[in-house]
């Protein structure tokens, strides 16, 4: 039950990472105002990331296959809003980690080690596969935790609330099945 506390000491947390989650969430809400009013494009991650996959596909399957693909054709890759947002996102996380002294290399996270052991190869293979399934699912659903989970739900969109509720239900049931009653911690 001590894990319920927000500020429980943990090796993986930096010392200055104790801002209230409510404060941070509210700031993300204000960031959404900017996204709607100034950029006229809600915050999201997977649309930009799926477009960044186009040049990778062009390398593997050829320029023509990537350029004429019906998914990418209406929104070909370019260094525009959705893609630059992701560059900024990584820079922001890096600066925060360095500034708070919590940057550290992690090969196998604690939750994974407790259930599946310390094999780096196993963890990397599973992360790759889970990433692929996650992206496929996000694209089929039309968004992710950002695009649906925040930007869509704040507009009270039916699709986004279904997404959020099904993801949490699947996650909670999945966590119980995979990690057991005590969970992944």
């Amino acid at each position, binding site marked *: 039950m001590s894990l319920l506390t927000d500020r429980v000491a943990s090796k993986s947390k930096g010392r200055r990472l104790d801002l209230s989650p409510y404060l941070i969430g509210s700031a993300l809400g204000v960031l959404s105002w900017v996204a709607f009013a100034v950029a006229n494009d809600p915050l999201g991650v997977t649309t930009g990331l799926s477009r960044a996959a186009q040049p990778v596909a062009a390398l593997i399957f050829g320029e023509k296959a990537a350029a004429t693909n019906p998914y990418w054709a209406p929104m070909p890759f370019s260094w525009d809003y959705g893609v630059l947002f992701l560059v900024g*996102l990584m820079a922001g996380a890096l600066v925060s980690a360095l500034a708070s002294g919590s940057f550290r290399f992690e090969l196998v996270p604690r939750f994974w080690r407790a259930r599946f052991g310390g094999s780096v190869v196993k963890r990397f293979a599973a992360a790759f596969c889970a990433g692929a399934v996650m992206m496929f699912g996000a694209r089929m659903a039309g968004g992710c935790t950002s695009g649906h989970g925040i930007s869509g739900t704040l507009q009270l969109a039916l699709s986004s609330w279904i997404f959020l509720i099904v993801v949490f239900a699947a996650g909670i049931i999945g966590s119980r099945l995979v990690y057991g009653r005590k969970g992944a911690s």
Partner: protein
Amino acid sequence: MSALLPLIMGFVFGFLLHRARVTDSNVIEGQFCLCDFTMMKVMLPAIVVGGLGVLALIHFGQASYHIKDANLLGVVLGSLLFGGALVFLGYCPGTVLAATATGSLHALAGVAGMIAGAILYAFSFSWIKSHILNVWALGKLRLPAMTGVPDVVWLVGLGILGLGFFAWLDRGKAR
């Protein structure tokens, strides 16, 4: 539009994700074992504060809705795949990118997987579009229009219920 705007917005987003500790996969996994509600505590005010502000912006003609289609079969199947993958990855797409930048090398394998998943999706898009995305396609539906309950009531109600729930969870805890 200036290239600076999305860079700054992304920077703020990534910075805040890290400060909220959701770039730590243990925190995300903690949410799904119901041991640590940090993820929900970040999302709730983002939805309520964001929603009230965007509602006002739209009311005064400064913004417009960007609603994703309720293709129910696609949304439900996609969400199930997403939620299932989340259990193993320990990140969602935004946090996996952010975590990569904070030194989590296994998150990089997740990002590579997401690129592969996007390519797989792009090459199966024609089939999915004509067999899945068109099933139970209800269009751009919003809860207020469907129920007659106004936006403000939804958002404020959600905020009160959520904060009440978190207060109940954290009862008796010194803060």
